[in-house]
């Protein structure tokens, strides 16, 4: 099997020290391969967002290593990590983090422009991404004139714009109704089927079910995993059809 796009090896993240020390993750190992969508579930405070920020190079582990396409993210330095986030890693934050002074399409185009793409080309890619999330008609609106669900879709478009090898999404369906939520899952799924690796943090079992694997976190520990092998022979004849 090829090397994973994302590989966390023995990762521990401790916030604070002494009395206020919080073990957000304890010796977690985690992989996501090309073409694979992995869901992460767990109660509030179990370390899901921590895992994702470490995977995206937004935070550094206390112990252990994070590798993206074989590269040690800790050894990259700030500039290297920033480049990686502009080019190969798409990130949807739990809070959408849109820039209020930019329109929807400018928000989506930003990572491409920062990476040196001509603004015409960046805009074209951004429009395509907005089209994919179904809000191309809102391209020239500012975030504060959009509903929560619409802002969320802009954030998702920004995460998938261009060629991302790794897509990290923290509760991307939070502010969406069930139909729109399903559309987003379809989009993530399609990106992974096309070869990206995806990690999806969610509270919703029906959304996690789109993943190839579901990883369960409790108090910073991976307690279980539900695999990709179909287990339900009750449905076997239908699969064979």
């Amino acid at each position: 099997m090829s090397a994973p796009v994302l590989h966390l090896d023995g990762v521990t993240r401790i916030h604070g020290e002494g009395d206020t020390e919080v073990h957000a993750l304890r010796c977690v190992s985690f992989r996501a391969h090309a073409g694979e969508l992995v869901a992460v579930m767990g109660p509030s405070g179990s370390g899901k967002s921590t895992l994702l920020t470490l995977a995206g190079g937004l935070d550094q582990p206390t112990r252990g290593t994070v590798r993206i396409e074989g590269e040690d993210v800790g050894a990259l330095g700030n500039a290297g990590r920033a480049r990686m986030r502009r080019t190969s890693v798409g990130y949807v934050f739990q809070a959408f983090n849109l820039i209020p002074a930019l329109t929807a399409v400018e928000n989506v185009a930003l990572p491409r422009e920062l990476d040196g793409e001509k603004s015409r080309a960046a805009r074209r890619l951004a429009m395509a991404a907005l089209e994919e999330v179904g809000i191309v008609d809102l391209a020239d609106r500012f975030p504060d004139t959009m509903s929560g669900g619409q802002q969320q879709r802009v954030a998702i478009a920004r995460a998938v714009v261009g060629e991302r090898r790794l897509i990290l999404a923290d509760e991307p369906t939070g502010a969406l109704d069930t139909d729109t939520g399903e559309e987003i899952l379809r989009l993530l799924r399609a990106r992974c089927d096309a070869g990206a690796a995806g990690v999806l943090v969610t509270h919703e079992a029906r959304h996690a079910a789109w993943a190839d694997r579901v990883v369960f976190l409790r108090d910073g520990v991976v307690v279980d995993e539900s695999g990709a092998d179909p287990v339900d022979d009750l449905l076997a004849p239908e699969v064979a059809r």
Partner: protein
Amino acid sequence: MSIRQAMLALLEDGPMYGYQLRAEFEQRTGSTWPLNVGQVYTTLSRLERDGLVEQVDGEGADHAADEGGHVIYRVTQAGRVEVSEWFTTPVPRTQPPRDELAIKLALAVTVSGVDVGTLIQRQRSATMAALQDYTRLKRSGRAAQPDQPEDLAWSLVLDALVFDAEAEIRWLDHCEARLRRAAVDGSGVRRGTAAPDVAAGSTTTPTTTPGSAR
């Protein structure tokens, strides 16, 4: 399950023989509730006895015929009345169907020596795996883009399975949170048996809690 009513309802659309009835049923429900042909014929002969269906071409046909015989049935007037009553009466909720998981958990939290945390996690994983399967079937295969009414029916049955599995996982999350809180408060349930100690230490698999070893 109401095989009886389902058979009658299918016969309302036109006379059929046993194999056809089974095929039509599975067309709409996948093989979620598999029917064997024996069951279909037993049901048909009971329906016939009760005057709800009749054989279209009775002469010479063997009553117990299967493959070759092809005894064709049609619904009677009394049968139509029964179908119509079935469709106009809600499925009763007064007697909830027996729920093995709820019963298992009710016993697990009260009987000593059961690692409830592991029980919950194993169930959650298993139910999640089933949910992943249903979701796969929903996004590929004939339920994904239903163009026949039977495919739409099957896709709705899949939705029912999805909602059921989802509800079960939510309930398990809820049970785990409540049991953890009860363990912290030291109230409600007996200590040492009910605390779902799934996160003890930094193990990667659920471990047995020390207090619940026997």
